[in-house]
């Protein structure tokens, strides 16, 4: 850009001259860039766009199912833990609580469900059953 290097430093180029020079330089650079450009063919870009859009659509459909799966698995784990809890509680109490329930049922008396070893796992089991039911409803319901 020798034109931009004035021999006489006192003679500054005018705005119009600068604009002409810059515009010419950029236009030349743009035409050089166009010659250098080797973009992929339109068919390739279209095909890639189609494939990507389809993959995104498929992912969008699968995402809610994944969430429901996670919820269902969590509920199953909850059910399993609460069942184990009940079993352990039963063993710890030497099946005394079961005997108590049996006795109460046999005599028509109220069952005492306030015991520590019964309340916690039973509550967890009930909550898990409710959540699992909702999850199953969501899974099998038509969209």
């Amino acid at each position, binding site marked *: 850009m020798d034109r931009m290097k004035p021999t006489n430093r006192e003679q500054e180029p005018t705005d119009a001259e600068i604009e002409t020079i810059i515009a010419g330089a950029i236009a030349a650079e743009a035409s050089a860039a166009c010659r250098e450009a080797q973009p992929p063919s339109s068919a390739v870009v279209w095909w890639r766009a189609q494939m990507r859009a389809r993959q995104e659509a498929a992912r969008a459909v699968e995402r809610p*199912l994944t969430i429901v799966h996670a919820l269902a698995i969590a509920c199953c784990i909850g059910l399993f833990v609460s069942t184990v809890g009940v079993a352990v509680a039963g063993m710890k109490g030497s099946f005394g609580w079961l005997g108590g329930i049996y006795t109460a049922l046999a005599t028509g008396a109220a069952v005492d469900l306030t015991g520590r070893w019964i309340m916690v796992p039973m509550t967890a089991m009930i909550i898990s059953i409710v959540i699992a039911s909702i999850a199953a409803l969501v899974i099998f319901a038509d969209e």
Partner: protein
Amino acid sequence: MADATFLDVRRIAADTDAETADVALAMTEDEFRAFYDRTSGALWGYLSRISGDRQVADDLLQESYYRLLKSAVAFESENHRRNYLYRIATNLVRDSRRSAKPLFAQGIEVAEIAGPEGHASPEARQDVRRALGRLKPRERALLWLAYANGSSHAEIADVLGLKTGSIKLLLFRARRKMATALQRG
């Protein structure tokens, strides 16, 4: 299919839908291909000079067209569509700048083949590129849109997300800055 669970069936159905259904793209294939053939070379030039990196330009070119195809904008004209494409491209360059790659770090190699009709020499073009590299990306974009694309102030403002009234002054400053950079050589 007898062993397939309900969820398997749902998944297969979703995949099949995705493969066969018309994905929501803003243009038909013929429209797109014609538009792409008209604009891709110029857009690549814009991306490569604004980002300062050919590889980035290659990547962002396809991303720009994809985002254009996925857009839900009702374009009033070819110019409107083109300006929107450049707006997407500008935003993508802006986003890519957050990565560690320094702009114009290696410079862009000057093509060895000289222009057919007495274009500037490789040295002069190297000067231009060096000068462009000294500008801010927005200044490069301003100058490119104005003098390479011949965009109006309103179009430049639309592409760069600026006020139309400020373009004249910003262009003046960018020209001055580039002139100073060219003088330094």
